[in-house]
């Protein structure tokens, strides 16, 4: 959650503007809403801004407020409400580890240890390579323990596979998204347990 609060030590840029390409995308979102209701596009636009810069600066939020004709505070409210918006810069890999009950019972402590060893940082800390964060239930308890890294989920983590995963990310090697033990979506581990044959 720490990336959810602005970092007083990181200077806020003075200005922000969408690049022409991002602006094209923004226009598509804005066009989805009837005239006078453009402010409904605030969430996708915040996401675009975050993708452009890697995080949301005050200038970016003010820019979007101006673009959509809404009071800046209304944009701040949205951006601060959803934890997916990052209000401070993060490292190359934004590693969010779930430590809620299901993940914790299934060994999230080990995953945390693996991450700390590979990246050399703890929860709430950041370096160029990565930002490590503790998050609440990621909604993928079935495949606990779970980490969200960037836009992707990595599931069924253990100390070993997590360590390998993090190392691969760090080394820029390709990694497997989703379950790390070959589970198909959220099916039972090791294959079907019911309806195994014709009745």
């Amino acid at each position: 959650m720490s990336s959810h609060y602005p970092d007083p030590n990181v200077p806020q840029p003075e200005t922000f503007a969408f690049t022409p390409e991002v602006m094209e995308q923004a226009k598509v979102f804005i066009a989805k809403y009837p005239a006078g209701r453009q402010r409904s596009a605030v969430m996708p636009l915040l996401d675009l801004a975050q993708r452009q810069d890697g995080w949301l600066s005050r200038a970016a939020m003010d820019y979007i407020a101006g673009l959509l004709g809404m009071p800046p505070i209304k944009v701040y409210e949205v951006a601060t409400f959803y934890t997916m918006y990052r209000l401070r810069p993060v490292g190359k890999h934004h590693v969010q580890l779930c430590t809620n009950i299901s993940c914790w019972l299934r060994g999230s402590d080990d995953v945390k240890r693996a991450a700390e060893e590979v990246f050399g940082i703890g929860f709430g800390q950041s370096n160029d390579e990565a930002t490590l964060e503790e998050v609440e239930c990621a909604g993928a308890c079935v495949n606990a323990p779970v980490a969200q890294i960037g836009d992707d989920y990595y599931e069924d983590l253990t100390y070993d596979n997590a360590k390998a995963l993090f190392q691969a990310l760090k080394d820029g090697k390709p990694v497997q998204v989703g379950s790390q033990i070959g589970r198909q979506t959220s099916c039972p581990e090791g294959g079907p347990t019911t309806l195994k044959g014709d009745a």
Partner: protein
Amino acid sequence: MPKLTIDGIEVEVPAGTTILQAAEQIGIEIPRFCYHERLSIAGNCRMCLVEVQPGPPKPAASCAMPVAEGMTVKTNSPMAVKARKGVMEFLLINHPLDCPICDQGGECDLQDQAVAFGYDRSRYTEQKRAVQDKYMGPLVATEMTRCIQCTRCVRFAQEVAGAPDLGGVNRGEHMEITTYVEKAIGSELSGNLVDLCPVGALTSKPYAFNARPWELKKTESIDVFDAVGSNIRVDARGNEVLRVLPRLNEDVNEEWLGDKSRHAIDGLRRQRLDTPYVRKDGKLVPASWQEAFAAIAAKVKTTSGAKMAAVAGDMADAESMVLLKDLLTALGSRSFDCRQDGAVFDLSNRLSWQFNSGIAGIDEADAILIVGSNPRWEAPVLNARLRKRYLTGKAKFALIGEATDLTYKVDHLGTGPDALKAVADGSSPFAAVLKAAQKPMIILGMGALTRKDSAAVLALASQVVDSCGLVKDGWNGFNVLHTAAARVGGLELGFVPGANGRDLEGILSGAEKGELDFVYLLGADEIDTKRLGKAFVVYQGSHGDAGAMRADVILPGAAYTEKSGTYLNTEGRMQRTARAVFPIGEAKEDWTIIRALSEVLGHTLPQNTLAQVRDRLAAISAVFDEDTAVPAGKWGAFGAAGTTDAAAFESPVKNYYMTDPISRASRTMAECTEVYVNGNQKRKTGTHG
């Protein structure tokens, strides 16, 4: 109309009414924090839980639940009480319970309701949350740990004030009320946030740690910082006014009050004239009343009435104006003016200077043309009413004058008389809007009426009235918005030039040229005192401002909190201030000064009591008589057709926070000027409060 039963009492209310409102109608008060009758419904505090049948077997938030036919509501059943106790316990989990050092103590909704519904001890042993305090400007102090997130302040800023600067950021237990960018709330109504906040999270900065509510003597009075005549309560301890709060008056200020009216009161203790002064060898020296009167008498004895004049200021009460006029009339003068800005009206018809539709008329108007006025600064409470009307979407707004942010959208027709001419001759599309409206209104400000060409502007406005049908059966949409509290009273009692008398410009140029030898300033500080030439100037008033500086004799008068004075607001509504504290030092109530002076001058006025002075007022005009209904006047054509200047209308109020001797003496207003007018938003360091 659904019928329901609340606590065994059957009641029928219009559909759409909420349970809480229905209960209110039959005198049952349901506790609440977030609900406020003038704000939208948020339903987030849960204090108003009641038991409702039929429905799910759980308590319901009565502020957000509309009534339905056949409902049975129990506001005090064991279930409701238990639910409320639970809510209270939750609210108190993170509340610091620092009542002994909290300014809200003694008038805190949370405190009161905790007494009613709280447990006497806490079961909570964990850490409480703490929230960093926020900067919200020079008037609102914050202690955000006390906040219960009712969002009343957020809704007020957005809905009533039209300054959406506040919001709730983060979520869950991390939620905080803030401007996020640490800026002053951009509104002239920000003081009302303090009244609205049900706990001590938002308190008054200038009043911080000054007094407890039970120590204060509360006096119901009237505000004189603008011409709206907001109803106020003056809270004093000893002989010091400590704060001013609004009083409810649906027809005038509802329950709001502008920041200047609320917070300029520290000016009542600074720059005060507390003793008479007489100029000796070019220097003002303190004197006794006898000496001061003698100095005036000596001058008056050698001056003919025709060479005397009097100007009344913007805060003068009607009593002192009428006596001053009577006295100078007896001395032979006919040169009076109560219009320090030289405003032009048709002095024979009060319809030409009143806000004829009434302030409450705004609630019904469906087309509103504002001309030469910035109501946001000239009358912020009235502006909030305009905004309220705007938000209903039932009225169209247009503005002729400087384009400013009035907190609502207006169709900007132009800046000067030409745009008004276009409405008058029908070439502006807004003329059609006015014509089509049921209750159209024009609001004419002092920016339009204090110009060289104002007679012609008044004629144009009058033409708009006729061509667009602003005056019709049961509706008069010709409205003048004054900026001075004393003005309408002065016009009504005839503090204007008599036959062959001089008006303000005549008085000033007369004094400049040496044609006038004696000028009496009754609290008049907004005139160009340099133009008074060599005239002998008497200044009667409360503050050492421009007028006193130029005076040859100073007579210390009372400020509005120190006397009972009659004022007519911009609608012509008669209201009276009340004495909350005594005048400072040697200062006296103004009418008594003039009465005493009249004796020394050998023209003793017959009025010996305030009641007699008021009888005199009532004899002049029924408007001053509480018991007589004033017949609706007859509409006439006002002004004189003539050429107009193309120059833009400019509002006379250049700085809302400093418009008169009191607010100019106020430190709080100086700070507001710094922040809001000069745009110096830097957060002051040092002790807060």
